């Protein structure tokens, strides 16, 4: 028995001394392998009498368990140490930069157009569209600006030959006077305002109608504050019993929602547009704060002034007639406002030309996250 005890003591010492899994396995083979001393000791039990066996077996079994447990424990310890070493070798410098993920952006003009659509949807306005290459009739004549109308001179119009009719025009000089009259109506141009969409929408859908029509418009004008292409949104309400008071309320409501301010104050001034009667120019009060115009408050307040913001009025009955709406039954209002201008006032850009330059730095600074889709519940504006 002493032999077994000595062997165990020596084996346990060797097991705990094993530095590698291989060394440990040698110990396992030496002890528990077929010819290992534990196995051999177990085999001796076979040659014993039952009495002897009963006496000797518990010690041998216990030795086997003890050795086996020790090997398992040592193995776990060695594996754990090996993993720790492996993990230590796998350490990353996580202060190094991760791969870039590029964030895209929505152009402020698109964002503001979405905001407008949201605000006006709440007021029951649908979004209407129309062609940018318009004919003279829709852009001018139907809006009560016939060929001789002086107001046409106020629109710096881009004209285009109609590619469809140009083949006929060649050599058609002999009937110049009669073809001129037709040509006048057919003459193509870039729409100078979004107002022709009024005509198209009324012709297509009749009255009552509530639409906004955002889009690109064009004037042959280019300087620090004007670009030959810009964006407008037109509003049109035609129904029974609509009057100037409804126009005022609609504009106030829209601007309060757009700027998310209750203190928007409008000043209505009589003006002139051929397509409205009465015509009203609308100023909004603002303060000059830190070199920026901040909309809000009355223009008559201290430190405040008025700025012209939009043109509007009650739709001229001639326009309704042109669009096939009975002016004795229906009346309503229209307004038009610059979208780029609204964007600048709300989000603080100061250079209109930058809107159309495509400078990626500008776009990512003034652009909007794809996930900032304007909603009424979240507020249509996006704060920095």
């Amino acid at each position: 028995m002493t032999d077994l005890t000595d062997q165990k003591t020596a084996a346990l010492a060797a097991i705990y001394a094993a530095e590698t899994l291989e060394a440990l396995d040698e110990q396992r083979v030496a002890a528990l392998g077929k010819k290992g001393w534990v196995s051999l000791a177990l085999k001796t039990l076979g040659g014993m009498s039952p009495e002897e066996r009963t006496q000797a077996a518990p010690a041998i079994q216990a030795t086997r368990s003890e050795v086996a447990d020790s090997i398992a424990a040592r193995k776990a310890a060695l594996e754990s140490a090996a993993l720790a070493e492996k993990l230590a070798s796998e350490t990353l410098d996580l202060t190094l930069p991760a791969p870039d993920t590029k964030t895209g952006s929505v152009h402020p003009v698109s964002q503001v157009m979405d905001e407008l659509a949201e605000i006006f949807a709440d007021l029951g306005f649908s979004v209407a569209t129309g062609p940018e290459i318009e004919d003279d009739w829709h852009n001018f004549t139907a809006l009560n600006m016939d060929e001789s109308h002086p107001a046409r001179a106020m629109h710096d119009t881009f004209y285009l030959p109609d590619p469809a009719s140009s083949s006929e025009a060649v050599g058609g000089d002999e009937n110049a006077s009669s073809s001129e009259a037709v040509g006048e109506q057919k003459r193509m141009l870039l729409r100078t305002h979004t107002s022709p969409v009024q005509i198209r929408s009324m012709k297509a859908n009749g009255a009552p109608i509530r639409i906004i029509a955002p889009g690109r418009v064009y004037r042959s004008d280019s300087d620090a504050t004007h670009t030959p292409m810009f964006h407008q949104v037109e509003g049109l309400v035609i129904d029974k019993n609509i009057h100037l008071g409804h126009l005022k309320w609609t504009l106030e409501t829209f601007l309060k929602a757009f700027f998310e301010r209750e203190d928007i104050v409008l000043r209505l001034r009589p003006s002139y547009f051929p397509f409205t009667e009465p015509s009203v120019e609308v100023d909004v009060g603002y303060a000059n704060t830190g070199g920026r115009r901040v909309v809000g408050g009355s223009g008559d307040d201290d430190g405040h002034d008025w700025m012209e913001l939009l043109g509007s009025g009650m739709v001229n009955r001639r326009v309704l007639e042109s669009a096939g709406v009975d002016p004795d039954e229906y009346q309503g209002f229209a307004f038009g406002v610059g979208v780029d201008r609204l964007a600048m006032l709300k989000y603080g850009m100061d250079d209109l030309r930058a809107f159309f330059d495509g400078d990626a730095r500008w776009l990512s600074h003034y652009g909007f996250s794809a996930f900032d889709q304007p909603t009424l519940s979240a507020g249509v504006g996006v704060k920095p």
Partner: protein
Amino acid sequence: MKFSLTWLKDHLETSATLAEITDALNAIGLEVEGVEDPAQRLAGFTVAEVLTAEKHPDADKLQVLTVNTGSGDQLQVVCGAPNARAGMKGVLGQPGAVVPSNGMKLKKSAIRGVESNGMMCSVRELELGEDHDGIIELPADAPAGHSFADYHGSSPIIDVAITPNRPDCMGVHGIARDLAAAGLGTLKPIAFPKFAASGACPTEIRTDDAEGCPAFYGRVITGVKNGASPDWLQQRLASAGQKPISLLVDLTNYLMLAFGRPAHAYDLAKLTGAVVARRAKNGEQIVALNDKTYTLDDSMTVIADDAGVHDVAGIMGGLESGCSAETTDVLLEIAYFNPAQIGVTGRKLGLASDARTRFERGVDPAFLDDGLDLLTGLIVELGGGTASEVTRAGSPPSDAKVVAFDPALTASLGGVDVAEAEQRRILESLDFEVGADWKVTCPLRRHDIEGPADLVEEVVRIHGLDNVASVALPRAEGVARPTASPEQKLERKLRRAAAGAGLDEAITWSFISEEEAARVGGGVWSLDNPISEDMKVMRPSLLPGLLSAVKRNVDRGASSLQLFEIGRRYLADGEHPTLVAVLAGEKTARGWDTGKPTHFDAYDAKAMCLQLLEAAGAPVHKLMVMPAESIADIYHPGQSASLRLGPKNQLASFGTIHPAMLDAFDIDVPVVALGIHLDAIPAPKVKKGASPSFARAAYSPPALQSVTRDFAFLVPAELPAGDLLRSVKGADKVNIVDAKIFDVFAGQGVAEGKKSIAVEVTLQPQEKSFKDAELKAISDAVIAAAQKQGAELRG
């Protein structure tokens, strides 16, 4: 138009302050664009007396003055004016004052070695007129030391914008009438200077063009002295920004600016025979008062005599018969011209004038005789001479418009309740005659009044738009309905999908240069009057605008760009909504892990294209990859393709931009691009008659696990991998749910002219797991399908 407060008060009896007047002008629709106070410009200039004047020791033309400033000080001032002399009174600018004409701030200086402590000023230096022959001479009783602005009586100048519908306010008198109606005072009656007319008009006057010139009145004045105008007249014209020229010219201008009534004065000595309003002959020429020659045609009305044309009717007189200092006998013309025709003529000739502005908007047809008498009276009063009787050819329109008005319309259209008596007062104060039955007779000068809505505007603007109360629009019952069209929703989805995928949205010009347009197939819409050659053709593609943006960004140092734009292409058959995206330069920058940057390639464009199409709801799984559209040189011919739903229905294209295109835009980084035709994406199908439902087709994930099988095929090298993949997928449409290519290889071990393509096929068991025989049958079907593409299973 500009006018001084003093001038306004010639016509308006008022105690209102300047601020009250400008507020009222804004409120009634005469927008104040600015108020200028000349007193501020003349600050620092005072009345001074010259005590002594000695010759400058070192300069022949200069004098050294001693000036009494009035405060007891005496200043030494060097002066170059020949009229400077001891004892005279003039205007002194002391150091610190700013000379209005040139913005120069006066300071102490030495002129040729002699100290000078200020400047004695000329009329021109103070911008009070043109005279620069000498310094201003003030009357002997002018108080030395007094502010010159006060002494001179300078009056604030108001600048108002007159809308084109109100030619009646293109004269001070008309503005005064509107202000009086708004309660700002009383309109003064016009003061007609008395004169005696004697003898018939010696010049025959006719109108042979009753359409272009319905009325032509005239009168001759002989023996006029055409000198300089008196101060009051010069000051009024100056306040309007008009240079005083001579009495006759100034008075015709005065009539126009004070009463909105253009007139013309001809030097009678330069006329021969009858003076006639007639159509010009084609090719006839005139040298106008602006020294330019105009060639006329027979659509234009002119005033001519036996010798030729003297006036482009209603627009500008001729140089030859204009009044000069020598003029003593004049023919005055006051006419009524057809407004539309004046506009056409003016546009044809490209000739603008104050007269045209008024005539084409419509002058007062009832102010011909009065206008002529007023002009005659002023000429005779200020320049002497003898006036003839008036001779009249034709007659101006005299049918007053009568509008049946319902005062209730002011509330129902204008949104404000105004008492009937007040409505009547307002209209009458603007010279409308209001009958007991509310039939309203309009003054002839109000060409803008067409119907009741115009009268509502008159009432509301004078009553005050401030009094219009906000009234909420009636709201539809229930919750708000969606208002966006399918096209708008598609555009929004694409825009936000693209931005979400890392692209920046740009907006570029709708017009591009002819050359750029030609590179993308040519534009069909070319502007007649482009702002520059770079902005001439309506773009047939969004690509050139974005490539220009890439170029600008690269020039600014950008190494990687991902831009997109959603806008229209302008083609012969209309305007097409389109998305174009460009991925330029580095896809990943040089980094610590990779070392080298990577660049975008055609597969990046394809991935982005499919991602966006998927977001747009396009049937991506049905799209065929086909050659890109045949417009040469947009894309690299071997690295581009289109995505189609059938051979003719192209939804999108993508690829590497052709190097020649990059050269044309001077871009030196690789660029890939993609374009999506929004209007080619099929709308989601809603069965006719079926109520649109939100519910989706029933679905529960399969209970059994899918299995995969790998196949390696040898195929002809030119076979598009996509063709093989489509065949494999189609081999068993029930069980095969996916097939992916995971290896493509050519070279060692693969025969010449062949390539190896490895495909992983995913099989989805439905009710029961696949049996071996079923799997073998599917396998055989896959191999058979591949064989039809010329593929053989690799051993």
